[in-house]
């Protein structure tokens, strides 16, 4: 018998319980995921631009590497800030437990940071673009699991059925592509040709479209998968406490950027493109935050 049928039959009410305080992973974790998306996303975009537009993208080698270093460090800083015992972080390196996505992610992120500094060294100190371009594919290859490991971590959270979806991995990759392209348009768009901007805009629009489809699929089909998912999604439906934030995020991150990109292509307006990029970056934070918080609102007992 389904839980809602039992509830209707028994009229059961919890009259005494002291569950764990609800929000255990707060906004610090949202910033963590958001910053990591940008940190790896811009590396994906640099790789793409160097392939497609080597002449104009050449000058972006060092600045994009610096942006990636900054955002990966924001990600690491907020990860550290969220720990209740931040000074024991070194335990991950000296007592690693390899079944944990946190451990694997920490090691990969550390290696990723090392490679980013190598790229910075090659582009700024050695000024050796040939070696930079040889190292970059390896950095891109590592950026993929660095992007994905958060999905693995969330899937290890057995208590949160909403995160058990295989689509979480796709969401992480699309978030990196969306935020990477948006950041490139916003900060480096002026240094690139309209054609290059158009390519970035296409990636932004496509990743927004795919992300929106995935979220809507989970919104509509998720409740059919499990009662727990249905209960969690009630927080973003009707008068749910996160309904407004959920839809604001969907509009800002996905729907409006898609519309604005279509508009910018017809009017060839870089300003509209930049507006789309800003909305996508802000909206992505909201989308990630809602998805992080709502499963934590459901009592486990």
């Amino acid at each position, binding site marked *: *018998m389904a*839980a*809602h049928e*039992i*509830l209707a039959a*028994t*009229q*059961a*009410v*919890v*009259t*005494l*319980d*002291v*569950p*764990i*305080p*609800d*929000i*255990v*992973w*707060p*906004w*610090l974790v949202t910033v963590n995921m958001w910053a990591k998306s940008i940190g790896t996303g811009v590396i994906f975009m640099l790789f793409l631009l160097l392939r497609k537009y080597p002449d104009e993208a050449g000058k972006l080698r060092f600045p994009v590497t610096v942006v990636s270093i900054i955002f990966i460090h924001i990600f690491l800083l907020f990860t550290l800030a*969220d*720990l*209740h*015992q*931040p000074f*024991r*972080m070194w*335990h*991950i390196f000296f*007592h*690693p*437990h390899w*079944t*944990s*996505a*946190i*451990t694997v992610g*920490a090691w990969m992120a550390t290696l990723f940071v090392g490679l980013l500094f190598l790229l910075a060294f090659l582009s700024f100190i050695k000024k050796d673009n040939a070696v930079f371009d040889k190292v970059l594919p390896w950095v891109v290859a590592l950026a993929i699991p660095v992007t994905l490991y958060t999905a693995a*971590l969330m899937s*290890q*959270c*057995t*208590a*949160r059925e909403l995160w058990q979806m295989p689509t979480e991995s796709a969401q992480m990759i699309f978030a990196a592509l969306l935020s990477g392209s948006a950041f490139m348009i916003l900060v480096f768009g002026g240094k690139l040709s309209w054609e290059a901007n158009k390519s970035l805009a296409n990636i932004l629009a496509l990743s927004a479209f795919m992300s929106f489809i995935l979220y809507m699929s989970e919104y509509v089909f998720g409740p059919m998968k499990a*009662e*727990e998912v249905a*209960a969690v999604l009630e927080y973003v439906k009707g008068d749910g406490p996160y309904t407004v934030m959920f839809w604001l995020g969907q509009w800002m991150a996905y729907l409006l950027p898609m519309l604005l990109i279509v508009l910018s292509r017809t009017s060839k307006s870089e300003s509209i493109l930049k507006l789309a990029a800003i909305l996508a970056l802000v909206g992505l934070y909201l989308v990630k935050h809602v998805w992080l918080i709502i499963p*934590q609102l*459901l*009592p*486990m*007992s």
Partner: protein
Amino acid sequence: MQLGFLVDLHLCMGCKGCEIACKVENEVPLSTWRLRVKYVDVGTFPDTKRTFTPLRCNHCENAPCERICPVSALHYLDNGIVNIDKERGIGCAGCVMACPYGAIYIDPQTQTADKCTYCAHRVASSMMPACVVACPVQANIFGDLDDPTSNISKYIQVNQGNVQVRKPEKGTNPHHFYTNAGNVNLNPLASKRINGHSLFNKITTLPVGGHH
């Protein structure tokens, strides 16, 4: 050896003696619980009934908390207990997020995760867990699941068909069983939580579970 727990909910009368014994034995800080008894009222007046369900760590065979812990602070003992090393934990709260039973909390004093250990320190000295000793009706049955002559094994044999675990669909294989349990006892979605509709309406929780 595989230690396990069984609670006969038909016997439990919600006295909370186990809760208090656990608090005292393990010096569990204010606002946190290793073991707690949940009350659920069933039916509509005048046909109502109150149910009591002691909730603690399930010491799963396939423990999500052990798997997600990045530093092996949560680890298995040879007797099957999922133990916790508070000196090792980094306070990432991954285990809190992973546990489907809401059995792990962040200790406000040590700022690391903590939970029921089946009183591993007492078990090591051949003593029963504090909650078992305190229960006035012997609703808590503790013992070796691998030993067919142990009380818990006999209880499970006698009550075959009436032994349940919480959230079996999670695939965690808990070593904590209930007899005479209904859905309202074990399924959190099968009961409402109405604000203000509680025996103690002014329960205060300290901001210890995370950043609020």
